[in-house]
């Protein structure tokens, strides 16, 4: 604990000496030239995946960190985003447009066109350029964020956790079973069941025929992901410092007071769900094409915990903390756990098979030692410290709240 405290004071003095923008510029430059430092190997691949997880962690941070709503089913939005690229960037729907398919700014190479037939694209299926699908997916996941968020608005705490957990389980099952129509409508195969959709169109710039990246040169994929991270950070910061961001904090701190100040609780919470979900879909589209497959096995409950752990370990509500948490856990998942594996081999079990048990253990340790996360937001630290000091009073407040909570939404 003393070590952590000294670390914190050290950080304060460092940030005190260097202006914030200098730090930001240094970080951005480092992030951009990073691929040249590590080459185009598996570490760059891991870093690219990590960037996608950073986006999801930042998205979940809006729901959990800013608005204070627990969400254990975030994987649902990853799934929806990934399936959107699966539908709009593959040969999943061969009968569309009389077997000629629909092509919007997706080049022949990106869509695995076997041979240019007179310069025309006519491979079957819907093929829309990746960069357009990104925003289609954001819109669709935002809508689903609202649809899944709406029934949970009256719930809080454990109940909210249970319902969101269920949504996280239901959504992938719905996709898995959509081999003959979606929601029982139609008879088209939407998912190939457990086999999933593959291959997924590669990324090409709208004005170029060439693939943006290949397995031999992953750098551009990294930069696409990095650009998406910058966009996510930008939106997060703007919203945090806005009227809506203030309303989220107010709702998190005291719903009764927030409602009495004229804040529409329903609308405020639904915005958090929608924007948080949109970033889940945003990252989902990227991971879909980057992994070249959209498969329901990717969308397990454990993944929701994985992202939530990033948010909590990093520091709920703090954008930089969440990024640090995401990078740390993602890299640990990729490199740390397999290392442990070689240690545990003599014991006769596979550490990666209990990886989420290990993340759970980390969460417990964090809760005991440093509940506010590695780089907490100032507010969260105060809230937690206060809850500690006024523990006895707090139970009184809960009693008062439940009585007060005829507050209707």
């Amino acid at each position, binding site marked *: 604990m003393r070590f952590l405290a000294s670390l914190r004071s050290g950080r304060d003095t460092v940030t005190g000496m260097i202006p914030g923008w200098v730090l930001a510029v240094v970080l951005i430059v480092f992030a951009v030239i990073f691929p040249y430092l590590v080459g185009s190997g598996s570490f760059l691949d891991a870093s690219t995946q990590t960037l996608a997880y950073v986006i999801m962690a930042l998205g979940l941070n809006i729901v959990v960190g800013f608005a204070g709503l627990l969400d254990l089913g975030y994987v649902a939005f990853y799934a929806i985003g990934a399936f959107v690229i699966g539908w709009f960037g593959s040969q999943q729907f061969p009968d569309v447009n009389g077997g000629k398919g629909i092509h919007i700014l997706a080049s022949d190479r990106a869509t695995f066109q076997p041979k240019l037939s007179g310069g025309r694209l006519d491979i079957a299926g819907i093929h829309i350029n990746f960069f357009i699908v990104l925003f289609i997916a954001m819109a669709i996941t935002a809508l689903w964020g609202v649809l899944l968020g709406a029934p949970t608005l009256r719930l809080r705490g454990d109940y909210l956790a249970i319902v969101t957990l269920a949504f996280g389980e239901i959504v992938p099952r719905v996709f898995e079973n959509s081999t003959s129509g979606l929601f029982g409508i139609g008879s088209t195969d939407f998912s190939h069941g457990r086999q999933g959709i593959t291959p997924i169109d590669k990324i090409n710039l709208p004005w170029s025929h060439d693939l943006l990246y290949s397995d031999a040169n992953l750098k551009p994929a990294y930069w696409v992901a990095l650009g998406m991270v910058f966009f996510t950070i930008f939106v997060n910061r703007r919203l945090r410092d806005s*009227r809506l961001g*203030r309303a989220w*904090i107010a709702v998190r701190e*005291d719903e009764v007071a*927030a*409602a009495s*100040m004229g*804040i529409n609780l329903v609308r405020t919470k639904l915005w958090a769900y929608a924007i948080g979900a949109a970033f889940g879909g945003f990252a989902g589209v990227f991971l879909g094409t980057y992994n070249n497959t959209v498969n329901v096995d990717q969308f397990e409950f454990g993944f929701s915990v994985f992202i939530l752990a990033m948010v909590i370990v990093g520091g709920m509500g703090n954008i930089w903390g969440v990024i640090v948490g995401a990078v740390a856990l993602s890299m640990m998942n990729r490199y740390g756990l397999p290392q442990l594996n070689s240690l545990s081999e003599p014991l006769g079990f596979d550490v990666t098979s209990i990886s989420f048990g290990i993340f759970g253990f980390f969460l417990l340790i964090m809760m005991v030692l440093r509940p506010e996360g590695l780089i907490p937001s*100032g507010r969260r630290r105060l*809230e937690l410290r206060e809850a500690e000091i006024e523990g006895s009073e707090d139970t009184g407040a809960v009693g008062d709240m439940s009585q007060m909570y005829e507050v209707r939404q």
Partner: protein
Amino acid sequence: MSDQQQSGGAAVASSPPVGETLMEVTGVSKVFGGLVAVNDVNFIVPRKAIVSLIGPNGAGKTTFFNCLTGLYRPTTGRVNFDGTDITAKRPDIVTQAGIARTFQNIKLFRTMTATENVEVGMHPRLRSRVTGMILRTPFVRREEKAARERAREILSSVGLKRMDELAMNLPYGDQRRLEIARALASEPKLLLLDEPTAGMNPQESEELRTLMERLRTEQDISILLIEHDMKVVMNVSDHITVLDHGEKIAEGSPQEVRQNPRVIEAYLGSQA
């Protein structure tokens, strides 16, 4: 119950307040299970008036407040405010209609600064939309800047100097002041104050009294006040309503209420 009401009617000549009506409450009751917390209360707040609601502990004053502001749905009765029916409307809609309130047990956003608390209070008066917030359009920029300046104005008008202090670190009296500032930020026509002088020293109470009078004369705000400090109540009120066991037992000018035997009985107990 009806017996009591009759005797009440006989014993007290209740004189309703005069003046143009801002809020009219008709027959509001609130029942929790078998407990009648507020029973058939009729009530009028005129424009530019300071009306007090007094009564012993547990008389139903705060419950009545909660029925007016939408935190509770009244079991029966109607609330008409400034020409619109706000009965059982959501709290945020009631606030937008022009009623703002403070809380008996202070409910500030504790990890926000004083200025930020007031800015949250302005929420219903701000017009930025989500896309505008993300792009930070000139309109949003201007509005945010104006909101900050206005918040500071309001804070200085209630006499709070430590504007960038976190709400949780403010002394008790300042927290009460901040609650009033936050309520004023929504530009209300009616301000509901729930025991604002609780925990204040006599000097602070006196400052609050002058603030209330200033709000009425300078900003034409009506004030509905729940208060136990009789010195404040008697000095500031145009009109007083007395609740006991959820029922209105008297109303009138401070002079009338002070001499009312039922009020004295409610406060001091029956001599018989």
